């Protein structure tokens, strides 16, 4: 895919920096054929809105000092993964969601399992990896950076939630190889923002988001971690339209789309 394809090649709209404006047809896509890994607390597979839509469900298990992944039917320990899946489904209903549970199982939930889950998602070659998680522990910064480099080279687009705390959260503060997102009051998933030059580059709807929750229920939630799956889902639409899109191009496309909208 060439980034120029996102922008129409017709004349006009020079103020957006994109001759001819933006090709809007990707918004009609449903994410078909695009795999999204949700590395989180698991997903409630039996939820009415999600039943049959979760292509695989794995969970981290400690085997001695190693962390391995096995098929999981244990659902969601906290509700968070189910909430993220609901956000994705609302925008990209045909995306292939893969649940990678790294939180909530007995003895699991530390930074090591988080890293192992990310590595598992990269090894599986998922096109989009949704990380509504983070760690402020400095010892995980270097291994996370290595994993993100691997993701970048493997063509996996990693979308990570920022935090709103004084301490930097990894990997959201890495600027080169992933897309970091913080919450915005917008309701329209296509009304995302791009703040070029800031550590956390993107904003997306993350305030009072109505989404799926455990117990076959729904909740209204607020947080950067719910802005994150909005961008993952938008990327699924773009990737359906442009399957060859690389992580670098994905970031450029989001920037171009956001910039063109703000110029309108």
């Amino acid at each position, binding site marked *: 895919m060439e980034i120029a394809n996102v922008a129409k090649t017709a004349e006009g709209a020079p103020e957006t920096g994109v001759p001819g404006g933006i090709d809007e047809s990707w918004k009609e896509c449903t994410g078909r054929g695009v795999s999204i890994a949700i590395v989180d*607390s698991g997903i409630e597979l039996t939820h009415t809105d999600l039943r049959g839509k979760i292509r695989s469900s794995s969970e981290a298990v400690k085997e001695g000092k190693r962390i391995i992944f096995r098929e999981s039917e244990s659902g969601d320990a*906290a*509700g968070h993964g189910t909430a993220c899946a609901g956000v994705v489904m609302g925008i990209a209903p045909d995306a292939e969601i893969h649940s990678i549970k790294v939180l909530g199982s007995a003895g699991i*939930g530390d930074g090591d399992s988080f890293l192992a889950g990310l590595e598992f998602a990269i090894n599986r070659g998922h096109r989009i990896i949704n990380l509504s*998680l*983070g760690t402020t522990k400095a010892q995980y910064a270097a291994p996370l950076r290595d994993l993100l480099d691997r993701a970048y080279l493997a063509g996996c687009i990693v979308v990570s939630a920022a935090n709103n*705390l004084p301490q930097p959260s990894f990997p959201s503060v890495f600027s080169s190889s992933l897309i970091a997102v913080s919450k915005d009051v917008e309701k329209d998933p296509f009304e995302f923002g791009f703040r070029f030059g800031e550590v956390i580059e993107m904003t997306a709807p993350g305030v009072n988001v109505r989404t799926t929750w455990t117990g076959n229920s729904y909740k209204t939630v607020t947080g950067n971690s*719910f802005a994150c799956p909005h961008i993952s889902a938008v990327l699924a639409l773009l990737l359906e339209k442009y399957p060859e899109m690389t992580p670098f191009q994905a970031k450029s496309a989001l920037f171009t789309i956001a910039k063109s909208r703000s110029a309108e």
Partner: protein
Amino acid sequence: MGGEPTDKVLEAIRKVVETVEVAEVLTTPFNESIENLLDLSSKSIKAEGASVLIPEGEEGDLVFKWACGSVSDSLIGVKIPSGKGIAGFVYTTGQPMAVSDAERETNFYSEVDRNTGFSTHTILATPLQFDGDVIGVLEYVNRDGDPPFEPFTPEEMDLAALYADAVASLVRAYKSADVLGEFSRRILESADGEGSQDVEAFFAGLEASAEHKDRIRLAELVRRASSLGEKERALCEEILGSFVRYRDGGGA
């Protein structure tokens, strides 16, 4: 434990009590500061109640350690299993979040509400971070007045993060001050021989007694009165002594 404690046991009890008293003196200012900050911040965030959860035990369970609001007394000491519920998620991920409609929460909060008689509708949970580590969770629940409550706003979420920074420092300081108390508990746990078992049994018997909470309240009153000054301590001793002598003498 059968019969009266031996001199050896009494001496061990005295040492434990002394250590706990020192720990209490050291931790009380932090306890009070955290409670004051919870009170102040819950007013500022317009929440009905606030609480701090910290990890306990090797499994990483969270326990309500400090709280303000209508059910704070029954909330303190309640445990959340590791990684469960909103607080468990916030603790393990370091990601703050707010949830409305929490009364329909199917896992943990319904259980907490059943135990406390409280009805949780909205929650704002923020991690307590210190030196890169998540050391607990700061939670705000509901609003003043009657439901339905307005959801917590992004601005209140950011404000909660600032309070969390201050609370985290106090919790860290509290834990440092509590080292002495922890030390005495470990001595009790690790000491071998019949003496340590007897000391343990003595405290277990105290805690199991129906009037345990009354005694603790009375002890707290005496402690507070004693801390007012030398004259006040003497007066307190005289009043209590007179009362005991009166009762011993058969007074009604």
